[in-house]
């Protein structure tokens, strides 16, 4: 039974409480950040006002926030799908990075669409082995997917320097993708690409699919109770593999979209940890479609506001890291409680 004695089955209040639980970490983060600001002699309210203005105050700022949220939509969704099946896939980072390199390389020769498809396939490749090990031998997926991130990091670094290095560029990077193979911009002159549309469409598809499809049903049941599912004739191993492969495909597609839309090539440090922030997005959003969108936009806002807020105040950028770090801690606590 639940901890709170008065478990009201009323749907409205259930929605409220789940919304409340999603917001709590952010509120606490703001309070802690405020305390730090006060202690260092700054006005927290003024700073938060600045943050809000810098992330949502005007078309350009909103575009920047959505742009920063786009990779998180992909990685958050990829993580949520696996989590929903009870698979703790923490290898989305690897899928995103390999998808980025593969997408950038294929698009160079075969264009936009081929680049996107190749990126998704690369993501599938990254998650395939951990998926099989988990389904067949029940090998802990947290270990294998975490390791796959390191393997991908090493592999991509080597591939770029050994084979794919652009001529005349000092740091390790692949050649610039021709403009014809870029993802079109959505709101010129602002740097928001149509990648955000792809991501949002995927999130909406997920919302309908998980709720109303046969496979979505099996995925939810497997996540809730694998023993029950197996006894009713759901092939749990197969569901686990499918969820991991879909998760990988979305991660890879996200990487390709980032390469083709934003960076226009693959470079060293392509992802500043989008896959890991995606874990926080999924956990805070409780693996729901709406939650993933909210989580991605909030983290996107913090990231985009952080870079410009600095220009207007003497508060060090680190305070933004304190805020997102606090939220992350809550996400990890939630992960730990779920397992």
């Amino acid at each position, binding site marked *: *039974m639940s901890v709170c004695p008065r478990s009201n*089955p009323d749907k409205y209040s259930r929605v409220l409480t789940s919304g409340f639980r999603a917001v709590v970490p952010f509120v606490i983060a703001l309070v802690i950040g405020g305390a730090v600001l006060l202690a260092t002699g700054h006005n927290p309210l003024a700073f938060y006002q600045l943050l809000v203005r810098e992330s949502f105050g005007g078309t350009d700022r909103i575009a920047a926030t959505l742009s920063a949220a786009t990779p998180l939509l992909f990685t958050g969704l990829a993580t949520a799908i696996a989590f929903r099946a009870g698979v703790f896939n923490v290898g989305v980072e690897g899928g995103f990075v390999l998808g980025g390199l593969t997408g950038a390389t294929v698009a160079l020769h075969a264009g936009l669409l081929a680049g996107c498809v190749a990126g998704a396939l690369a993501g599938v490749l990254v998650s395939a082995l951990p998926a099989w090990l988990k389904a067949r031998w029940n090998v802990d997926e947290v270990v294998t997917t975490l390791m796959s991130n390191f393997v991908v990091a090493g592999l991509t670094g080597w591939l770029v320097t050994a084979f794919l290095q652009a001529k005349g560029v000092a740091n390790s990077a692949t050649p610039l993708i021709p403009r014809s193979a870029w993802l079109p911009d959505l709101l010129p002159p602002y740097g928001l690409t149509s990648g955000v549309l792809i991501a949002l469409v995927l999130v909406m598809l997920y919302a309908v699919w998980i709720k109303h*499809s046969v496979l979505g049903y099996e995925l939810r*049941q497997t996540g809730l*109770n694998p023993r029950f599912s197996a006894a*009713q004739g759901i092939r749990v191993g197969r569901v686990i593999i499918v969820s991991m492969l879909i998760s990988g495909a979305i991660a890879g597609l996200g990487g390709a979209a980032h390469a083709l839309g934003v960076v226009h090539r693959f470079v060293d440090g392509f992802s500043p940890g989008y896959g890991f922030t995606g874990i926080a997005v999924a956990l805070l959003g409780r693996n729901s479609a709406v939650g993933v969108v909210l989580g991605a936009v909030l983290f996107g806002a913090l990231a985009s506001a952080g870079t410009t807020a600095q220009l207007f105040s003497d508060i060090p950028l680190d305070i933004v890291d304190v805020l997102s770090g606090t939220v992350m801690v809550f996400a990890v606590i939630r992960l730990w409680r779920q397992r």
Partner: protein
Amino acid sequence: MSVRLGARDVSRAFGPVRANEGVSVEIRAGTVHAVVGENGAGKTTLMRILYGLDQPDSGTVVINDQPVRLRGPADGIGHGIGLVPQELAMIGSLTLLENLVLGTEPRSGPRIDWARARGEAEELASRVGVELPWTALADNVSISVRQQVEILRALRRGADVLILDEPTAALAPAQVDDLLRLLRGLREAGRTVVFISHKVDEVLAVADEITVLRGGKVITTRPVGDLDRTSLIELIVGQQVGFTGFVPSAVTGDEVLTVAGSVSLSVRAGEIVGVAGIAGSGQDELVERVVGLRPPDGRITLAGQDISTLPVDRRRAAGLGYISGDRRSEGLSMDASLADNTIAGTHRTLGRHGWLKPSAVRAYAKRVLDGYSVRYGRTTAVARTLSGGNQQRVVIGRELDRDPKLLVAAGPTRGVDVLGMTYIHDKLRALRDNGSGVLLVSEQLDELLDLSDRIIVLHGGRVAGEVPGGPASRTAIGTLMLGRTPS
């Protein structure tokens, strides 16, 4: 001071469901007080309130003649009340001793004093007259042993009122006798016991006073001397109940199930084959092999088709139904909706082009749940919110509705009330009379004798013998269960 624990005009509603309505009971110190009633009558709800796990919407709990407010179980424990819940919550990977002292370990300095813990445990156990394998892991002992540890755990925390919610539902007859003896011992030592059970014979054997709940209200509280079996059942269900008793099969057909391996047996169409044995004699393995949850150790056929290597879904498609003996973690998904629980296993045939239409799902679930008289609010409610017996009805409904050729039924009436039990028994007989086969595994000897056409007795993972169904086989089964040959 006469009322040790009680309720005064207690009401508690869950949405539209009135689980308790103006309930008043008085449990006198030093008595065994039984609370009986149909599934969903509100027994568990009342016990949770008396222990402080739940709070009433109105009315008060009474302790030692004084109205009190219990804010949580800690308050209940503080007032000397202990609850052994319907579903035991123990940590399987810890030993019995560790489970016993968990949270209140005796310490010497910063370290846990295991020698003293052991001493306390032995002392407590001998006081109530049980012997326990303290170093065994909780996962490796029977439910009956785990229950005894839970009781000692409550006593150790200073409980002199013990609330036991359906402690005998999963026990074999011999273990029930042990438990009843233990309860009588507690009463002799001056403690108070609140005892919930659907088995009227046990209630009449152990209780001093009996409170009957129906539809959330108290029907009556009477001393045990005023009641007999028939009158008590009538009070519980509000009508007379006809028991069918043993009715052997009229016609049997071809074999619908054959199993070869460490246990070999067959079930024919139109036949109920019972499986008896003390817990852990190979029943679980047999069931899991037939259902497909454990690799086979021989050939298994279903209606002539070799299913030994088929996955569960293909076996189900071939006509297998399965009532799991572990309702809580295998028969139901507690955090999934009733609709999702009901369509599980049928969801593929219900789907159109890979999609499930919400209205079709709801209609299917409603039809099954209503058809098996489950007391529920909405099909979107999670299974956890149903009372124990109603949860069991969901499982029964889901499996019987598909009209299986072979039904594997493990403990099909566990936690089900008197009326529900006769109802489920009649349904199983009807399934048989329609030409299906039933493999029935149960700890309840009466159930086996009443329902089965033949009974296979297991001992040490092998078949020890076979006897015909009906009341005459009782002693023979007892002998075979212990691995001896009947004279």
